């Protein structure tokens, strides 16, 4: 294979990479388009930075039934962002080809020289809105209109941004909030994010470890305390391990 794209659950990525060894040659480029932080680190265990591309999509997706799937562009504009871990001829060839194919296929896409700021923005936004929506059982628009809900969102965002700053992504909370207002308007507001869907509707394992869990881990590594993200991670982790024991109202 010239390029192997990984789109597993992040918890299964290590095993998937190991399993894919037979179709990875010395010139194969590995690509992760999965949400969250640190997926590229798992690819870097088996390939050098000159053969790793990472990024993520903005659109919502659903598997309707075997042989049928649906994509929805919640907000107009660029739907896919990715870029190389390190600049190289191989990464350039695959990155440009992926960009061309996505665009020609109808999905607005950018292959960035440095995708890191995009990745961090997405992770921060997901880390703020997804678990809080899941924990409070409220749509984004409903908890952000509540003083306490919004306070929790801002406290979470402040920590995420302190960590991002340490990793060379210079943004501030007011900047990110302003960007959010400009770009998505009501788009992000009126729905239950994927983590809330996983937890409330399907009782599935969530991607907490690549979001708030990753923020905690990355924070620890550079000495940034993340108490709010730690509590959020612990709560979601405990809930998702004990769905069967949760209190349910009598029918």
């Amino acid at each position, binding site marked *: 294979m010239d390029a192997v794209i990984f789109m597993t659950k992040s918890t299964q990525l290590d095993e998937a990479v190991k399993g894919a060894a037979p179709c990875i040659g010395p010139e194969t480029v590995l690509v992760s388009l999965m949400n969250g932080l640190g997926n590229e680190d798992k690819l870097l265990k088996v390939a050098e930075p000159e053969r790793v591309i990472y990024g993520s*999509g903005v659109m919502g997706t659903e598997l309707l039934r075997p*042989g049928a799937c649906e994509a929805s562009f919640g907000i107009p504009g660029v739907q896919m962002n990715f870029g190389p871990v390190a600049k190289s001829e191989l990464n350039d060839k695959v990155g440009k080809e992926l960009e061309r194919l996505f665009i020609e296929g109808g999905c607005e896409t950018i292959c960035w020289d440095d995708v890191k700021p995009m990745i961090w923005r997405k992770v921060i936004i997901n880390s703020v809105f997804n678990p809080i929506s899941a924990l409070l059982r409220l749509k984004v628009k409903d908890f952000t209109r509540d003083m306490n809900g919004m306070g929790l969102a801002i406290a979470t965002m402040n920590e995420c941004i302190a960590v991002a700053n340490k990793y060379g992504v210079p943004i501030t909370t007011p900047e990110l909030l302003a960007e959010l207002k400009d770009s998505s308007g009501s788009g992000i507001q009126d729905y239950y994010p994927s983590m809330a869907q996983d937890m409330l509707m399907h009782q599935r394992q969530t991607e907490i470890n690549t979001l708030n869990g990753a923020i905690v881990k990355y924070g620890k590594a550079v000495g940034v305390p993340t108490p709010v993200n730690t509590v959020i991670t612990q709560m979601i982790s405990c809930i998702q391990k004990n769905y069967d024991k949760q209190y349910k109202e009598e029918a």
Partner: protein
Amino acid sequence: VKFAMIGSGAAGSCFAAFLRKAGADITLVDPYKEHMDKVAADGLDFTIYPDEHYHIDGFKTAYTSRRYRHNGCSHLYDQVHAA
């Protein structure tokens, strides 16, 4: 450029649909056998919400054991490799 999509659930299938729609040579790999068999036999029905419908065929497919754990899955990847 030959692509493999390891993990072709909701997101993987949609991403692959865009790529194949533009003519990419792509092999889907997923443990969900029913989905892989359906795509191999009849192609993929791809909707861009709310009302763009496409029928996309010409995918190669393979399926893996659910947790990628068994040594026995390597022959499936040989299948991918050969594709």
